[in-house]
């Protein structure tokens, strides 16, 4: 590793941290969608399971994992603490929904939204990484998570018909994430290699947003026969999910360049010793 002055890719967080953002977003989105669609509780549980997998992955990255309970100590300022505080509440709400408690699925959906917002703010609070600290990343990650969640729901529910309100939500969320991606990308000033990684992932991301959007519009406009409708549903869901996951993986592991060091002024050489000045 070189130590500047030029930016370099952060080496502190690898695929394990990326998994937390990928699984946390997709799982939260799935919980929200499952509540919205009044789905069976196993879909809520699947979302919670995906979130738990992400948390387990990032736990593997801790230097001192057996102290990890201390992560909740700084809820007043740290978004990582807040994420850790919300997660058990979310799991409890999903468990309550599993046992049929009325309103629990909506509580789980609300907590999932809070959880994914914590994750987005967590990344945005990393001032050392220009691509992460751009404020528009927060809504982008939240809407990406929602699109991933609906996508996952479409894949997992491919055996049943999709309510119109889900297709409409899917289309709105996809349009929002595309607009937010452009807004975020316009404002990111980062190293050329990070920009190249973002743009490469961005091409996939945009395709994985536009194609499912087209699929949603087709499904809304002209109800297909059962077979093609199921295939379209699964394909659109998988694309929306995969594009979002790939974007977040890239964001953490390839676009996480710091800003290096910069000298606003060069030294003017030749000065006497301080006490002689």
């Amino acid at each position, binding site marked *: 590793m070189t*130590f*500047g*002055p030029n930016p370099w890719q*952060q080496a*502190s*967080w690898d695929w394990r941290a990326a998994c937390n953002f990928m699984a946390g977003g997709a799982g939260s989105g799935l919980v929200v969608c499952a509540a919205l669609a009044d789905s069976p509780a196993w879909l809520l549980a699947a979302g919670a399971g995906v979130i738990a997998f992400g948390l387990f992955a*990032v736990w593997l*990255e*801790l*230097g*001192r*994992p057996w*102290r*990890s309970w*201390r*992560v*909740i*100590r*700084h809820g007043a*300022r*740290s*978004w*990582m*603490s807040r994420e*850790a505080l919300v997660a058990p509440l979310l799991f409890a709400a999903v468990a309550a929904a599993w046992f049929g408690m009325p309103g629990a699925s909506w509580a789980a959906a609300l907590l999932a939204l809070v959880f994914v917002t914590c994750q987005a703010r*967590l990344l945005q*609070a*990393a*001032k*050392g*990484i220009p691509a*992460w600290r751009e404020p528009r990343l927060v809504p982008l990650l939240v809407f990406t998570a929602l699109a991933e969640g609906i996508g996952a729901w479409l894949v997992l529910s491919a055996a049943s018909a999709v309510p119109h309100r889900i297709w409409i939500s899917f289309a709105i969320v996809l349009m929002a994430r595309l607009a937010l991606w452009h807004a975020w990308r316009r404002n990111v000033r980062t190293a050329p290699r990070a920009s190249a990684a973002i743009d490469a992932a961005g091409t996939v991301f945009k395709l994985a947003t536009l194609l499912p959007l087209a699929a949603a519009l087709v499904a809304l406009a002209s109800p297909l026969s059962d077979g093609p409708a199921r295939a379209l549903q699964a394909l659109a869901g998988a694309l929306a999910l995969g594009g979002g996951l790939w974007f977040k993986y890239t964001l953490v592991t390839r676009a*996480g360049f*710091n*800003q290096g*060091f*910069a*000298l*606003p*002024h*060069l*030294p*003017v*050489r*030749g*000065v006497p*010793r*301080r006490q002689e*000045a």
Partner: protein
Amino acid sequence: MTRWAMVADLRRCVGCQTCTAACKHANATPPGVQWRRVLDIEVGEYPDVQRAFVPVGCQHCDEPPCADVCPTTATKKRDDGIVTIDYDICIGCAYCAVACPYQARTKTMRAGFAYGQASEHEVQRRDDTRLAVATKCTFCVERIDDGLARGLTPGVDPEATPACVNACISEALSFGDLDDPDSNVSRALAENQHFRMHEELGTGPGFFYLWDRKNTESAA
């Protein structure tokens, strides 16, 4: 109040890395970990090229992003401006490392030795509490606290001054109390033009760089 700060006179630094070596000696950091680094920066294109040596490390910020993000409160800022890490609380999540705009923090997962096997002094100075947690420059806080307890003045008395400052062969580094208008750092800042790294981020670094005298016609 006291606000400890460091000043690096970029006009005087010759890039000898003695501060880096002194820091490693004083703090027994493992191979590859440098709490005090000196960047060798070339600016421009041939033949119009300038070179600058820039000491970097923890900037002990007024608003340290590392302390805000730390989920365990292991990282804290003292009243005198020194940012500290409690190695017994840190979980090694490295959130502080990605939050720091100065790349000042390191996490070492396992003990490393300069020549493969541990030498005698490496065995003596081995500190496993610093493994798998975040570490960084402390401004040699133990020397400061110990010196103050003995009535010494950090930045003036070598026993109470950070090792890098003591070691600097060209008197490029100085240390002192910003809140004392007569301290060496306050006088240096009053007499010279200076900047702080990435000031636009609002972190308020406690590390200043001098680049020219004030009111000179030869300002670059």
